[in-house]
């Protein structure tokens, strides 16, 4: 019998290695796998590259990981938030590397990794500073009279995502806008670890309603339900 259920966050994260590239789901607080990030903080892996939409809020979750000096580089679309002072400080001090990526290029590059695409041409970013990599303009091409930039896939060693329900085969559903990057990150990482609020029996998720099929998920760990907190906005 196959079971992808991990007993604990610590078990699920035990083999994350130094220098790993780690995708972290979430947009604002929705879909942010805080319990998994806290576990990563305890676990100790460092020199990490984080791929996420944001770069942490206040001093919890990603921001705590950054504050602890465990992150070498962040690949994200929107680090600047009202409460992103940990990232802001590290960035201004030159103590963290930032690869800023338009959010759609980020999502599409992650999906490309998950779908076996070696690279793709997109109009987004053409003619801007974000069509450069390390100061050098990326390859461009005219296609049917419009200009495109060649973007590469983003692969990861580990994806940490927050889902809603899961089963022992790793099938997942999400809750409202907490879905965001979860499904594509699950496709792009060698090891995808999903936290869920409910572990259900096989077949309890209608096969028509499975959002992430189990093939994309290696470990599922149950966490207590807690209301998602506001994040990246003025406190409510």
């Amino acid at each position, binding site marked *: 019998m196959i079971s992808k259920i991990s007993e604990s966050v610590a078990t699920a994260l035990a083999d994350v290695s130094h220098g790993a590239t780690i995708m972290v789901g979430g*947009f604002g607080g929705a879909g942010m796998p805080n319990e998994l990030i806290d576990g990563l903080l305890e676990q100790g892996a460092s020199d990490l590259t984080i791929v996420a939409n944001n770069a942490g809020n206040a001093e919890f979750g990603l921001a705590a990981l950054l504050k602890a000096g465990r992150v070498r580089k962040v690949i994200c679309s*929107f680090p600047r938030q009202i409460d992103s002072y940990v990232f802001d400080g590290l960035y201004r001090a030159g103590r963290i590397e930032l690869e*800023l990526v338009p959010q*759609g290029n980020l999502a599409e590059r992650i999906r490309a990794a998950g779908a076996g695409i070696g690279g793709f041409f997109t109009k987004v970013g053409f003619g801007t500073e974000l069509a450069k990599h390390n100061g050098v303009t990326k390859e461009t091409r005219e296609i049917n009279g419009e200009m495109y930039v060649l973007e590469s896939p983003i692969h990861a060693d580990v994806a940490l995502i927050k889902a809603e329900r899961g089963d022992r085969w790793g099938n997942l559903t999400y809750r*409202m806008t907490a879905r*965001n990057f979860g499904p*594509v990150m699950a496709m792009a990482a060698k090891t995808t670890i999903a936290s869920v609020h409910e572990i259900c029996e096989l077949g309890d998720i209608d096969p028509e309603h499975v959002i992430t099929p189990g093939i994309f998920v290696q470990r599922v760990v149950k966490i207590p339900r807690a*209301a998602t907190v506001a994040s990246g*906005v003025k406190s409510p």
Partner: protein
Amino acid sequence: MSYVKLTREQLAARVARDIPEGAYVNLGIGLPTMVANHFAPGFEVFLQSENGLLGMGPAPSKADEDYDLINAGKQPVTLLPGGSFFHSADSFAMMRAGHLDIAVLGALQVAANGDLANWHTGGKDDIPAVGGAMDLAVGAKQTWVMMEHLTKNGESKLVERCSYPITGLGCVTRIYTDLAVIDVSKDGFSVVDVVDGLSQNALEALSGVRLR
């Protein structure tokens, strides 16, 4: 001759007036978000938010706020019956392939050639952040800008060439400001509307760019 600038609400109402029923629209964070409050009841416009929802409704009451149901500005919202959730790659597919009819975006500068600058001042200590701005600017069928005409220092946000880092080349088709509505085409800026009491010449002087 004296004129009165549109208030933020008046400006939002002015933008809303031009959005046809049935349009698929993304309202950028900040000022453009206010446009949502100015559609007549029962007037069906489909609001998309890049974090993965279509059919966004009004803000919930305080008691009903749920931070799993937020907009791109990370504020709690609601979903209308007939709305849907989807993941980020599907969401950006909508935005990047011309499925959205209109993106309404804020701006730091708009140039006469339609270039948009709205993601970064380029200042040394400024933290850059782009989010979905470039995807919307380039991907929507039409990109409208909604902004105050002048900066707090009285500088025009309409420019011959953007001095701030570019969001998208030649992408803006229309600009709504607290002073005027301006079309942008290959022939440059052309004035559609000006607030009462402001002449086109005076507007041009304030704007510091050629207005047809």
